[in-house]
């Protein structure tokens, strides 16, 4: 670098570089300056002395950012130069008190966030230095020991953690290796039997295939010749289609004659794929991973297994080619994948499946499921489906649930691996248990179906009993008016509907207690004939109430929105004022709060500006919380007011 030549003439240029490097607001030392410092310091011992001195000068400055950068530089030089180490270590207690700020009479200077960073980093660095150079410098050991054992500072303890992780990993590897070894031994013993078993299955399949093929051979041949002649004149796609169809035709059709063979073939195929192929693949992976001295057996076994796998695959291909009859056992992953893809898609898929399996009956009920039909309609399908299948009856009976993740493992009672996806957890900072399992109960607990309870809107009927002074009783009680007994439908004059006039007269005269007793007795009788009238009335009133409620809700919402908007504005303005509170334009800029905010961000940071108090995010959040709380109270009181209105 060109700097080295410069330092030839100027005896100590490190101090200037250091001053420059520490005079920055960046969280890192400017890499170019750092490099310059390093190369200059490397150049001569005088520069090292100068560097130590000027760094200590920087460390004494009452600004944490300066100290922070100085510590970063010190670390760089400390890890490199022996002379630097031995010089720094002489005044190590001073350095520590300036960087860690452990002395009560010498706390770290503002800004506080950087000061805490500085402390954290210095402690980390001290640990690092101590672990690498502690035995050469008593002062390092002393400082470390003092902070750790006397002042009880928390050190990150990197080394120990790393060692422990290493140990754990080694143990895990040992364990897996042991398991693999066991498996390998097992394989060694059973190798021939496994092979023969697989061979047997393959042979059987081969025989089956031969039998089938023999039967159909002539037919196929003829077909092929035909299609060759014709196909030449067709366009490519058409030809492809034709080829496909011909292939389809060529495939041996299952019929009564060869049903047994096909069955056997299917059975064998299933065995081959589901058992042998997987086991072979497993063995291969075991063989690859196992760590052995005896490589000969491993290699031969591996080779053989690979051969076997190839054979199995070829057999499978043949089987698949031969006929779609041998439909592959549907690979489940795919299905799950498709189902889980889009949320909307699921019910339809469901429906499709259902319709394939069943008759047409319950499609409407399905739809209803989806839409969570109003409770009134629930009876209809029930009635109609009585005659139909058991299943649809049950379906109708089944509760309607909104879709949710709990449907995924409905009724399953399996333990679930915590790390299901096989995430690489090495980068994780905590301890990691690779085999952690979430027990089934916990899963059930997690996927408990929750719904928000919605209170059904009930319009409380006024009592409407005729009062002695004229008019009707306007009390609204849920079931029973304390003065006029149970609330029953009444006509405009207050006479109970569907009751003998004499009895109403009685009630009018009677004291309330008597009336309640009386009504209690024949309450049961009333209910049936009450039905029609009330339903009509209720329906009307319900419509009205719903409308009213809607209006109220809207009003409320609007009020709330207005509040929120108002509040947001207030908060913004406050924030703006606060952030610019120390700048000269405190009063004037109230209106242009947004602009000033953005300006503040883009304004170039200086060391001095860092020392100024700012409204932190925390402040703002607390401010907001406070105001929202008050707003909430306002809302509550408002709502209470409404409630009161309703009551009256």
């Amino acid at each position, binding site marked *: 670098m060109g700097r080295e030549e410069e330092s030839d003439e100027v005896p100590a240029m490190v101090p200037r570089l250091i001053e420059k490097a520490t005079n920055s607001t960046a969280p890192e030392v400017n890499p170019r300056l750092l*490099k310059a410092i*390093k190369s200059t310091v*490397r150049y001569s011992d005088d520069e090292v002395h100068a560097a130590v001195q000027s760094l200590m000068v920087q460390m004494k400055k009452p600004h944490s950012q300066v100290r922070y950068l100085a510590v970063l530089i010190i670390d760089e030089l400390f*890890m*490199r*130069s*022996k*002379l630097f*180490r031995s010089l720094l270590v*002489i*005044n*190590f*207690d*001073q350095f*520590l008190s300036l960087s860690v700020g*452990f002395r009560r009479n010498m706390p770290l200077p503002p800004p506080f966030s950087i000061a805490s960073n500085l402390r954290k980093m210095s402690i980390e660095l001290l640990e690092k230095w101590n672990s*690498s*150079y502690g*035995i*050469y*410098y*008593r*002062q390092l050991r*002393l*400082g470390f*020991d*003092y902070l750790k054992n*006397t002042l009880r500072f928390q050190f990150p303890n990197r080394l120990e953690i790393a060692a422990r992780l290493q140990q754990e990993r080694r143990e895990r590897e040992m364990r897996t290796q042991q398991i693999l070894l066991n498996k390998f031994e097992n394989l060694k013993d059973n190798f021939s039997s496994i092979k023969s078993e697989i061979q047997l299955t393959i042979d059987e399949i081969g025989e089956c295939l031969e039998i089938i093929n023999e039967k159909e051979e002539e037919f196929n041949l003829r077909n092929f010749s035909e299609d060759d002649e014709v196909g030449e004149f067709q366009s490519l796609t058409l030809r492809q289609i034709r080829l496909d169809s011909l292939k389809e035709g060529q495939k041996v059709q299952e019929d009564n004659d060869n049903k047994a063979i096909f069955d056997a073939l299917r059975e064998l195929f299933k065995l081959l794929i589901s058992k042998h192929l997987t086991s072979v693949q497993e063995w291969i992976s075991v063989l690859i991973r196992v760590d052995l001295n005896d490589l000969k057996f491993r290699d031969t076994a591996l080779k053989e297994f690979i051969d076997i796998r190839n054979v199995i695959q070829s057999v499978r291909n043949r089987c698949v080619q031969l006929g779609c009859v041998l439909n592959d056992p549907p690979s489940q992953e795919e299905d799950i994948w498709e189902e889980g893809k889009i949320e909307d898609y699921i019910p339809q898929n469901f429906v499709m499946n259902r319709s394939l399996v069943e008759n047409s009956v319950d499609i409407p009920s399905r739809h209803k499921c989806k839409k969570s039909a109003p409770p009134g309609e629930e009876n209809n399908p029930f009635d109609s489906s009585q005659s139909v299948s058991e299943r649809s009856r049950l379906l109708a009976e089944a509760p309607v649930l909104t879709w949710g993740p709990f449907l995924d493992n409905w009724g399953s009672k399996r333990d679930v691996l915590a790390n299901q996806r096989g995430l690489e957890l090495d980068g994780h900072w905590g301890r990691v248990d690779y085999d952690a399992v979430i027990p089934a109960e916990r899963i059930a607990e997690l996927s408990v179906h929750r719904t928000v309870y919605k209170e059904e809107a009930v319009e409380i009927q006024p009592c409407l009993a005729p009062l002695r002074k004229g008019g009707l009783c306007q009390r609204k009680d849920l079931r029973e008016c304390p003065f006029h007994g149970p609330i029953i439908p009444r006509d405009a004059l207050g006479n109970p509907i569907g009751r003998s006039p004499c009895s109403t007269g009685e009630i009018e005269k009677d004291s309330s207690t008597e009336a309640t007793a009386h009504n209690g007795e024949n309450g049961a009788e009333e209910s049936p004939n009450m039905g029609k009238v009330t339903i009509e009335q209720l329906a009307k009133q319900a419509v009205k109430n719903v409308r009213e409620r809607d209006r109220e809700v809207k009003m409320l919402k609007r009020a709330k929105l207005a509040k929120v908007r108002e509040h947001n504005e207030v908060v913004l303005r406050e924030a703006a004022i606060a952030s610019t509170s120390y700048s000269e334009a405190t009063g004037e800029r109230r209106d242009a709060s947004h602009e000033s905010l953005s300006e503040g961000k883009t304004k170039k940071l200086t060391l001095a500006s860092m020392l100024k108090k700012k409204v932190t995010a925390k402040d703002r959040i607390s401010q907001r919380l406070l105001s929202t709380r008050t707003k909430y109270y306002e809302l509550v009181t408002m709502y209470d007011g409404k409630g009161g209105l309703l009551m009256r």
Partner: protein
Amino acid sequence: MWKEVRDREAGKLPPITFASRVRSCRVSALGLSNHKEIVSPHHGAVNALQVDLTEGRYLLSGASDGSAAVYDIQRATDYEEGLIARHRSLFVVDKQHEYGHKFAISTAIWYPVDTGLFVTGSFDHFVKVWDTNTTQVVMDFKMPGKVYGTAMSSIAKAHMLIAAGSADVQVRLCDIASGAFTHTLSGHRDGVMTLEWSTSSEWILMTGGRDGAIRFWDIRRAGCFRVLDQSQCQLGRRPPFLENTSKKIVARTSLAGSSSLANKSVSRKKSPLGNGMKQSQALHKPQNLLRTPVRQRSHPGMSSSHDRATAHYGAVTGLKASVDGMYLLSSGSDSQLRLWDIESGLNILAKYEEMSLQTSKSIHLALNPDSSLVFVPCMATVKACDVWSGLTLQTFRGHYELVNCCYFNLQDQELYTGSNDRQILVWSPPSAIINDLEEDNRKEQKFSADKDNWSD
């Protein structure tokens, strides 16, 4: 170095000079030892340190958690990485011990004759004498207050007394032989922080109190015979003592035997700068008086103004007599270090650089054998000052809290310091010169990791 060895062999250089040169050379190179480490078992501030006087091998420490421990400083108990010799305590007596001290140990000293006994004084009002081999208390003395300091005379032949200073105004002398207080010396107006036996006379005890006074006691008589006064001073050393003048003085003293010390000191005041006849006459008198019975009568009549004299403003926190018994160094809570001429009782106006000293506790000073250097605990550091010029030659930084005590091991030229941060640090000259070469080779390997590492 090698030239000097050859000179000594050739007889050009007297062996004593050679030895002192080597020593001073080593002392000037003292630094925090990286290869010698004392593992402190204490959970509190280390208040007292002393290496035994007979073998120079066992370090005794007393700490604020009421524990005292002994270390072998010659042989390490274990080595870390083959480089750092760790000296663990041979034994610890602490609160768990049956007869252990309940509160902080403020002072711990060896029995000067051998290492079979040691004495600890504690804030629980007890001075205890321990058997080193069985680590049992063989004797204890109940003091009227917190014990601040104890001292035993290293040159005593006729008595075996522990002088103990406590929060009480009286200094008590505890006799190990009888297990009782033989003397109660009263005169201080406040607690006694620090005590020092004279290194030239086994009967002379010097005590410094919280009242700022340093009193000299002749234990054969009641009362103190001298109170040091900071305002009475002389400049520099006294001139070498001439035969004929001494005779004259003897004659004169016997004549003017009845004149009180106060009078003399008044007359002395008038000629503080004088190096002449008059002063040396006055200076020499006390020595003679010790020998002559005339002196006995002088002290009861000591004028009250003299009795009130103070050596420091505030408390006297540390005393240290030079090995030759000529000078006394004292430190006070006024952050001053004063050098006294023991014979004359005058303040030698040595100007020590400004330093701040601990004020609340007694501190232990250390002197190097030729009394040229004093090691002073200054807050969290220890300073090595030239006794005469007062210049600070070295500052030992390493402790993180206030240093309470330091002890200079004459034999190995090592300095031990104990501090509030519970550590005992060893400050030693860089490794021995003789086995420098082989050590270098060995270290070369050990230190291989500690090198420049400029990757970029």
